């Protein structure tokens, strides 16, 4: 702040609080709706104060709601989401850090070409090449499998660029010293580069976990077997019921639960999150 303007500061606070109220409104309504019974939500205007069915609704989600919507058990879907997010995160970090290491610390034929091939993945989001990718996964017999769900999502140009960028800032002397001491490339990687990259890896973990958690189109395409359903697909099924009314109290309880893990991560690891976001997207 350059000068003291109490009234302007007051306005700033007021504006930000209003902004927060508007931004948080949909989630507030979702939380409130998840504490009422279906009847209340259907018959009257949406109440803005909590009701008395909180425990009942969430218990239903964990127990019988899935079966009623033709979905696998809730813990299984939550587990699938978790596995997917975690394996994608680890996979992306491992293959990206290895390729960045190769590109920065070695000189070899086709280096330029390899770099461009990785770069191109930036230009081909899955939404754009849906049909042919689906066909290839089907031809490889990878439909309805963890491999089909996860492997095509694991390539990452942005993570590779981030590690490359970071490795370029590691002092040359580090590697020269390691070489003088007779350390081979993998020993250098394991004992020096990896520990140095700790913060970057942590920041990427936050971003990539969210990326994996919110995946929707790809799981929907490659898995028809309900035992692979994730929470995101369960949500969609609960809203798109063919006969009868949508049970909004349960859908909202499911929404609240589905956003809890990534939102909690962003709030509690804010520093890493901001770092991961602003550095990967450069």
């Amino acid at each position, binding site marked *: 702040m350059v000068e003291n303007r109490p009234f302007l500061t007051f306005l700033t606070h007021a504006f930000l609080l209003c902004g927060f109220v508007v931004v948080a409104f949909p989630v507030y309504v979702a939380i409130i709706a998840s504490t009422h019974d279906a009847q209340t939500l259907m018959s009257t205007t949406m109440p803005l104060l909590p009701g008395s069915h909180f425990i009942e609704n969430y218990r239903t989600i964990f127990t019988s709601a899935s079966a009623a919507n033709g979905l696998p058990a809730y813990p299984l879907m939550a587990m699938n989401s978790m596995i997917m997010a975690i394996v994608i995160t680890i996979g992306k970090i491992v293959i990206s850090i290895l390729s960045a290491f190769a590109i920065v610390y070695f000189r070899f034929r086709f280096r330029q070409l390899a770099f461009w091939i990785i770069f191109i993945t930036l230009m081909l989001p899955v939404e754009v090449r849906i049909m042919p990718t689906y066909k*290839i996964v089907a031809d490889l017999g990878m439909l309805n499998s963890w491999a089909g769900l996860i492997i095509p999502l694991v390539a990452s140009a942005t993570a590779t660029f981030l590690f490359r960028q970071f490795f370029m800032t590691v002092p040359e002397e580090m590697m020269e010293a390691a070489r003088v001491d007779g350390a081979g490339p993998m020993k250098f990687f394991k004992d020096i580069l990896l520990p140095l990259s700790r913060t970057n890896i942590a920041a990427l973990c936050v971003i990539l976990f969210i990326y994996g958690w919110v995946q929707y189109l790809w799981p929907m395409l490659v898995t028809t077997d309900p035992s692979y359903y994730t929470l995101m697909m369960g949500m969609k099924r609960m809203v798109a019921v063919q006969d009868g009314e949508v049970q909004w109290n349960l859908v909202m309880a499911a929404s609240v639960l589905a956003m809890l893990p990534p939102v909690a991560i962003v709030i509690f690891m804010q520093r890493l999150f901001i770092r991961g976001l602003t550095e990967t997207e450069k």
Partner: protein
Amino acid sequence: MMDTKRTTFQNKWLPYVLLAPQLFITLIFFIWPAGQAVKSSFEREDPFGFSTVFVGLQHYARLMQDPNYLDSFLRTAVFAVAVTVISMLLGLLFAVAVDRLMRSARVYTTLLVWPYAVAPVVAGVLWFFLFNSSTGILPYYLSFFGIKWDHNLNGTHAMILIIIAAAWKQISYNFLFFLAGLQSVPHTLMEAAAIDGSGPIKRFFDISLPLLSPTTFFLFIVNVNYTMFDTFSIVDATTNGGPAQSTNILVYKVYQDGYLGLNLGSSSAQSVLLMLIVIVLIFVQFRFVERRVQY
């Protein structure tokens, strides 16, 4: 872009091993399908998939004459511009406000960043519920102004619904980048301007905004990219492209025509056109990044 270290390790096969997993996945699941899309955009398959005929640019020519496709193009443009403008404007306003505060900046940042972590499909469902014509809370308030909200029948309402849902999710992203941009504005410039008697608003327009222009440009590209591709699940969770195609944006149409409609040739041609759009966007973005480095 392509530097290595001054000294490098000598090893004939190790770099290839290190690169293998990434390259393998990229070739099989990115390059190959992209090639397939280009190939089948020039072919027509008979309904049983027994034979394919080379038809040249026929699919493209047909798309260019298809009013549905051109319409979808236009709707995508409206959608992308609306989401980009709304979310960037709000992100900028929040960032400017938070940047003014010292002690409470962190708290407000926490209060504003979390929507980034909400899955697009959940964001879609939340806003769908708020705008639900029979039970939603917003139509109830809108009815006082004589607006009869129904996004199941009214295409404009459906478009507004997906614009709001998509923009809501993106505000926090823009906010963080604008805030980072504002915090890197030299303090001395601000103080000098203040001593010369320019007020906060004048300082914003004369100093902050021009210095933010690289961030603004970068965010513009990223946001257009986001609205064109990452909003698939918002559309799928709320309007399914309807009513009457009014929210059938390009990326959703590729899916509808290809996966649901099984019109492989046309869907592939649409994929190829979308890829060209992404390539242009990324090219522009990287050109700009290079320029920024020189400053």
